[in-house]
């Protein structure tokens, strides 16, 4: 038996040395990101001096894109791109085709397998991905060099602050957005009008025209306090989502993604939980589940969270429900766009330049104006087209006549305020949501919730 073990070891050693050789082949693909990295750096240097260092690659070859789900924008663009450059093939790999929805985790498993084996697609669309983790792990190429070298990417053509919202502290840009959805806070027109008749004005956060969730809620509370109307409540949000939004206001206090420090098991967090629970059980401010008959009762929600375009429209619609809408900000006044509508280039891709050309094409006036794009474009012309398209639709639906110029101006004003990209880890979001929910359902105490979350998130970071 001793002999057998020795011979087994020998076999293993010989095989391993063989593998070492083979491993070198693997290392060639493995070292790609490094090579790409230096390319990027070189270009960046050049870009500072003059813009002509980046030369357009030969438009020939094959690029692939992976996406969770393609609404049609990607495939339309791919088709157009291939017409323009007949020698280029663009293949879109979408994971979810619109029928039976697979789990997001299986999507990540699928994508991770491809990334770790060095076979990921050239362009990765960020929907439902933990982009922060991916960026930290080096999945994406730094695109800052490409961006500064591309002449058309300037303030005249783009909402540059949104376009560069993903830039990190060191100036690297792993992601470039093709669309920038953001949330807004809106107040009920009738309640505001009622209170304004007393000479009151809606207070804003500082000089910026944006508002954090907490300040929005304190205004909502004032509105409810002031009215004598029946069925007037602060918000439609559930207590889970109310808590979540309060957390997002000052998430860095609890979870610092940079230093990986977690302060959830603190008095502050426990107080926050209790505050929300108390408030949500107050029937003056929070409607009881199922107590409102939405078809027959008259009801008022003082503050509503909505999405970009739709919110703008209902603020401008004369009989619309909303007024004084502004982008939702955090406690420091940062307005976040969703990270789900970005592209990154795979750092191991052998066709980075070609992939970048495709992304540039996706950002072009032509593509950004395409009806296949269903969220807020980052391109100014695209945005105009988007507003025009939707305005027609909404005006018809509401039998109204909201002015296009006005809509453009309001949205533009909002868009200019976007300055950050929400890269908060969706996995941690899920934990927070789940455990807080358990607390609100009475399954665990606030102290336990804070303790559990502290351990879970610590484990997530240190595993």
């Amino acid at each position, binding site marked *: 038996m001793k002999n*057998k073990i020795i*011979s*087994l070891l020998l*076999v293993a050693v010989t095989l391993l040395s063989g593998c070492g050789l083979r491993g070198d082949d693997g290392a060639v693909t493995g070292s790609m990101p490094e090579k790409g990295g230096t390319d990027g750096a070189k270009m960046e240097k050049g870009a500072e001096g003059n813009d002509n260092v980046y030369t357009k690659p030969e438009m020939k070859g094959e690029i692939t894109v992976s996406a969770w789900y393609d609404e049609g924008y990607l495939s339309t663009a791919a088709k157009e791109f291939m017409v323009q450059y007949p020698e280029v093939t663009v293949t879109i*790999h979408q*994971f*979810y*085709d619109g*029928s*039976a*929805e*697979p*789990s997001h985790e*299986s999507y990540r*498993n*699928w994508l991770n*397998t*491809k990334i*770790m*084996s*060095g*076979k990921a697609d050239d362009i990765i669309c960020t929907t439902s991905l933990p982009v922060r983790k991916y960026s930290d792990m080096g999945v994406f190429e730094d695109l800052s060099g490409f961006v500064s070298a591309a002449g058309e990417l300037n303030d005249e053509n783009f909402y540059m602050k949104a376009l560069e919202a993903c830039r990190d502290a060191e100036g690297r840009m792993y992601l470039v957005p093709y669309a920038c959805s953001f949330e807004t806070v809106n107040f009920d027109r009738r309640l505001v009008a009622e209170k304004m008749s007393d000479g009151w004005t809606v207070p804003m956060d500082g000089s910026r025209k944006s508002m954090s969730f907490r300040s929005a809620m304190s205004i909502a509370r004032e509105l409810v306090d002031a009215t004598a109307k029946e069925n007037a409540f602060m918000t439609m949000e559930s207590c889970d989502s109310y808590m979540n939004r309060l957390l997002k206001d000052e998430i860095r206090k609890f979870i610092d993604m940079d230093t990986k420090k977690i302060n959830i098991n603190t008095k502050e967090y426990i107080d926050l939980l209790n505050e929300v629970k108390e408030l949500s059980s107050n029937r003056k401010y929070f409607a009881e589940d199922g107590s409102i008959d939405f078809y027959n009762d008259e009801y008022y929600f003082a503050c509503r969270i909505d999405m970009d375009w739709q919110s703008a429209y209902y603020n401008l619609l004369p009989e619309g429900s909303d007024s004084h809408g502004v982008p939702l900000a955090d406690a420091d006044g940062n307005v976040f766009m969703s990270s789900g509508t970005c592209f990154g280039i795979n750092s191991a891709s052998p066709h980075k330049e070609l992939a970048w050309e495709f992304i540039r094409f996706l950002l072009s006036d032509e593509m950004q104006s395409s009806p296949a794009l269903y969220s807020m474009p980052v391109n100014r012309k695209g945005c105009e087209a988007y507003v025009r398209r939707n305005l027609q639709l909404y005006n018809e639906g509401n039998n109204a006549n909201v002015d296009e110029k006005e809509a453009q101006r309001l949205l533009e004003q909002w868009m200019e305020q976007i300055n950050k990209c929400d890269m908060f880890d969706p996995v941690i979001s899920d934990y927070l949501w789940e455990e807080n929910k358990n607390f609100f359902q009475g399954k665990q105490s606030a102290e336990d919730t804070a303790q559990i979350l502290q351990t879970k998130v610590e484990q997530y970071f240190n595993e």
Partner: protein
Amino acid sequence: MKKTKSVIGKVLFSLIAVIYISPLLIVFTNSFMNQKEIYRNYNGTGDVFAWGRGFITMNLIPEMVTLSQYVELLLKTPVYINMFWNSVQIALPVVIGNLAVSAMAAYAFTVLRFKGKEVLFFIYIIVMLLPQQVTLMPNYVMAGWLHITDSYLGIILPGIFHPFGVFLLRQFMKMIPQAYIESAAMDGAGHLKVFTLIILPMVKSGLAACAMLTWIDYWNLIDQAVIFITKPEAQPLSLFLANLNREQIGVAFAGSCVYALPVVLLLFYGQEYLEEGISLSGVKG
């Protein structure tokens, strides 16, 4: 005395049997319930005034028998039948291929004598123990080299060469006295003859066990399907069932029944072979 003992044994045995069969039975009968009843039964809220004092209820007999879940599944989700066929297309080649390759290898392990044979066999066993997470990625790389990503081959080929069958069949062939094989060889029968006419019939029960267990494994596969099969219409049934969410419990029940049917049938028929022992008398000594 002995009789009461055996009666107690039988009662105990039947009790265990009931515990074993109850999940499938419940899944089967509940698949005939309507959505409302299922929701009411499986919604444990802890509310003492609610149905069942807020506890989950498992009823064997539906209040009202309905085929609506099956209609939903088979008629409104036509992909279901398609996926059923996909599962067959994966599991069947794996089982057949694996049996063939494994039986040959096991035979070779039994008759060959060479240095390092046991070591090689040992490596088979160790590698078989590796969890899936670690082999999935290299297999994907491998499939890329062989240009079989996005096809069933990426799952089928590794399946065919899975060491389990070799291991299982060799353990069974070990039980055949060496003298039988040698005497057969002495008679001048070639290896192919000994293998097909003598050894294979003798390890019928091993072959049956191997086929049954491999089928179960590949009928239930999920992880490999996620990685290797990206076209939704090509996905196997197991993945479809795993993706059904909580609101579709009824459909999941019906789906599980249809899903389990071929496996139950296979087990039912495979069983008889399990019990076929080595019949030494069938061999001319």
